[in-house]
């Protein structure tokens, strides 16, 4: 897991990085994402998926691998490179 204390201060929006949301209704804890990107997706216990919702931009490839590996397409990712959108 990356260290959350490395993230920007609370009220600030991140200006660059990834945003991840997993639909945990769909997720069946198959853990393919955990193999694809072990730094960002971890099974805690038998069925509780813990994922990092705001990995750095450098994790882009790993997180994309995880997204594609998920058999139930539960992972949603946005790549944020600038906040003007």
């Amino acid at each position, binding site marked *: 897991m990356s260290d959350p204390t490395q993230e920007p201060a*609370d009220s600030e929006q991140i200006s660059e990085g990834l945003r991840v949301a997993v639909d945990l*209704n769909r997720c069946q*804890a198959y853990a393919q994402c955990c193999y694809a990107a072990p730094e960002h997706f971890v099974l805690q216990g038998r*069925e509780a998926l813990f994922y990092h919702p*705001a990995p750095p931009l450098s994790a882009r490839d790993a997180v994309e691998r995880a997204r594609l590996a998920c058999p139930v397409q539960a992972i949603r990712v946005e790549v944020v490179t600038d906040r003007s*959108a």
Partner: protein
Amino acid sequence: MSANGHAVIVGAALAGLRGAEAMRRAGFSGRLTLVGAEPHRPYDRPHLSKHMLTGEVSAAATALPNLVPLDAEWRLGTAATGLDRANRRLSLADGTTLPYDRLLIAAGTRARPWPNPAEGRLRGVHTLRTRDDAAALRAALVAGPRRVLIIGGGFIGCEVASACRTLDLPVTIVEPGPVPLARVLGRHLGAVVAALHEARGVELRSGTKVERLEDDGSGRVARAVLSDGDTIEADLVVVALGAVRNTEWLEGSGLKADEGGVDCNAYGQVLGEDGRADSAIAAAGDVARFPHPLYDGRRVALEHWGHAVAQAEHAGRLLAGADPGPAYAEVPAFWSAQGGITIKSVGLTEGADALAIAQGDPKAGRFLAVYGAKGRCIAAVSFDSGRWLPAYAEQIAARAPFPPIRGAADQGSLTILDPAFPEA
């Protein structure tokens, strides 16, 4: 409706964001404005009672991914204060007005406050709904309270208690019902939840109520007095008494709305007090009350993440003028993570008159229970057995006969239990 014009969304959170995306996907190319009472862009609330409290996720990290370019204007930190349907105009808290020609109401809910306002204002008394609430609660947990008292053993109360134990903090849940989650799961499954938390060191006080909160003489909460006369010394209190829908701003709009939500028809169009649908306005997410086709058209307002997404997508297509398809009929579903296990549910348990453990064994901590009403499957709840759930979700969607048909053939006959909901 045309592809242009001005679409306004009130509530810049999960349903607001997914509704806006659905409008764009469906070809709406006009002006789009999101009005949000909170100062933040949409963020994901489920983190707030789980990994944000344990410090694994920061407040800023909870921002939701935006999945379709929105080209939107954001009016954040500005609540809508009034709706004038005759002139298709919103009033905002900053004194300005905003015209619309289509409107999505996605104003969600807020935490139900402690009924005594003076006690609720004591330092150390928290509620949990927003990212700022979670940041404040996290800071209070880090400060090392002597004991955390949680008022209310619902999902959020149980998740907060679980986070407290992960942080090795002493914690007490006071729950007026017989066991936590009894209202949603019934006593059988609530007892499994109780055992789970007690095994992790949560002190559980069921069947009693917090009568009042007392301070230490300096305005900081110090203890709670219970209806059975006992007191609990606690310097941090989390009021987890459920939610109130944000509908006050609709007063005078002629829409049918109250603390339980804004009424819509089966397509998500809001209803006037005269019962007529307003085709320019839809509602979605926690704030919307609608007739659920799966439950004989019973009007429900669901507080589930997946529902906010699905209903907002439906409403967004509707407002964009695209064919939204058949009436919104998504099978309700939610998850909760507590005490290291995942509870998942499909369907609605309300009104169940029978319960069967269809898979696994509650004693082993992994099982799936099916709820029946009048001989039909109406809901299923899994504890660390989510993989079984889709098969039962299908039976619920099909209103299949109860007891359910099970996945494996070699199991004995099902024992039918009483779900044992507490008296209302």
